[in-house]
């Protein structure tokens, strides 16, 4: 009986206030889509970082007039360095010049004016922990025969910074939208409580429990939040199908494939966030609105 009463009240409440309900669902959906998108992005950037950093090399460029002993000593030291993973690769003058030609193939004039001897030889090493670059640099920079120690990761970090900023922006938008959604929820609940003030007054008079008085309103808000979450999930699915896997396909080369698993895990997360946040907002609103 009670459940039936509460459910029918929820349905009546949602329908009575249908424009408000739709507005609430839309803002909820937009904010949850933003939230979902920023979470997916967070995940992608993390994955991407791991993938790139594991491939990242540290280059130790040698002096042009390095001696064989210095070079051998360095090779020895790198081979036994606990921070280095695998065997260091040595690029001699010929290898380095070929690499240089390849990298600079758009600038023929530069290639023509550079002799193989001007291109420094280098060791290329992978680090066990790519974040320990500073230690490697401190060890080898300034050693006899070493010209410079360069970390590719420092270049990648600039890319990560841009992605991080985008991620932050999505999160800020999600929060701003979320705030608007919460205010709408609070307002809708107040309107609902006002339109049922007679019933509420009688219920309080005859001693209905606070739970019983408040639950239809709270469930109404939670229902709208959950619908908003479903719409947001649909938005994420559409974004994957029509954007990431289609017109923005090229982007996946950088950020990596967005897995269905990543999208699907958003459904329970968004549902929980949508329902919980609007439910709590509704409940708090009522605490102020329906006095004892």
């Amino acid at each position, binding site marked *: *009986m009670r459940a039936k009463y509460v459910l029918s009240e929820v349905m009546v409440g949602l329908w009575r206030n249908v424009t408000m309900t739709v507005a609430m669902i839309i803002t909820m959906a937009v904010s949850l889509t933003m939230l979902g998108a920023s979470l997916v992005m967070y995940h992608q950037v993390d994955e991407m970082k791991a993938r790139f950093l594991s491939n990242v090399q540290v280059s130790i460029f040698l002096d042009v007039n390095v001696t064989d002993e210095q070079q051998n000593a360095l090779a020895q030291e790198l081979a036994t360095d606990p921070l280095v993973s695998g065997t260091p690769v040595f690029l001699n003058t010929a290898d380095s010049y070929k690499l240089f030609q390849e990298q600079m193939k758009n600038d023929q004039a530069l290639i023509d004016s550079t002799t193989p001897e001007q291109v420094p030889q280098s060791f290329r090493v992978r680090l066990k922990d790519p974040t320990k670059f500073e230690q490697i640099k401190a060890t080898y920079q300034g050693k006899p025969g070493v010209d410079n120690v360069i970390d590719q990761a420092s270049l990648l970090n600039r890319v990560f910074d841009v992605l991080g900023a985008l991620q932050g922006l999505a999160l800020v938008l999600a929060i701003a939208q979320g705030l608007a959604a919460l205010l709408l929820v609070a307002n809708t609940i107040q309107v609902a409580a006002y339109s049922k003030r*007679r019933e509420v007054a*009688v219920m309080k*008079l*005859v*001693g*209905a*429990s*606070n739970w019983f008085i408040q639950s239809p309103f709270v469930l109404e808000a939670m229902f709208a939040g959950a619908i908003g979450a479903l719409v947001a999930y649909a938005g994420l699915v559409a974004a994957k199908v029509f954007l990431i896997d289609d017109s923005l396909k090229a982007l996946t080369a950088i950020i990596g494939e967005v897995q269905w698993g990543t999208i699907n895990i958003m459904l329970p997360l968004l549902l929980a966030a949508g329902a919980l946040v609007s439910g709590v907002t509704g409940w708090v609103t009522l605490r102020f609105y329906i006095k*004892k």
Partner: protein
Amino acid sequence: MIRLENVTKTYPKAARPSLDGVSVSIDKGDFVFFIGPSGSGKSTIVKLLLHEVTPTKGKVVVNDKDVSTLRSWRIPHFRRSIGCVFQDFRLLPTRTAYENVAFALEVIGKTQAVARRVVPEVLELVGLGGKEHRYPHELSGGEQQRVAVARAFVNRPLILLADEPTGNLDPDTSIEIMRLLDRINRTGTTVVMVTHDSNIVNQMRRRVVEIEGGKIVRDQPRGVYG
């Protein structure tokens, strides 16, 4: 049953207290009128008994419980032992007489089966047999107040509070409502009625507590309006 011990109630921003050191005791099964001019503090007593307001000073004891120390989540349950009738009836306009009374049962968790058994009974008691399916706007003022009394009484409360129940009714209808309250009182229910209807008070010859300026100025066992 009901005891006010040296109760003072001052509303925020009010210059003087609505009730000023009021002490009164009402036994089980009593029928008591609270009379006095507007603003004398009569209605504050009803609000105190319902725990709609808390006393500034003093103790309010209802059913042997100190109301002023009642935790807020216990108030709903506490109110189930008190029935309430008001001048403006406070019926739900979109529900029939039957539904209005049944609503009071539903919202405290009684089943529809209980409502089907109890509601016709109590509507019969208040003299509305056969009018169960009328909406408030299809009933006269007196009939609407009967529905309100039925709603207040359906849960068999120990106390019935009536705040100017005849304020909107003509004298004849008022007397009918008073007969009804008298009948309910005879079932052992304590009736507390706030009024300034002198005819009613004079006819009923029940206990009269007169309040003026927040103080009790008279407490007579079989009093008149004065």
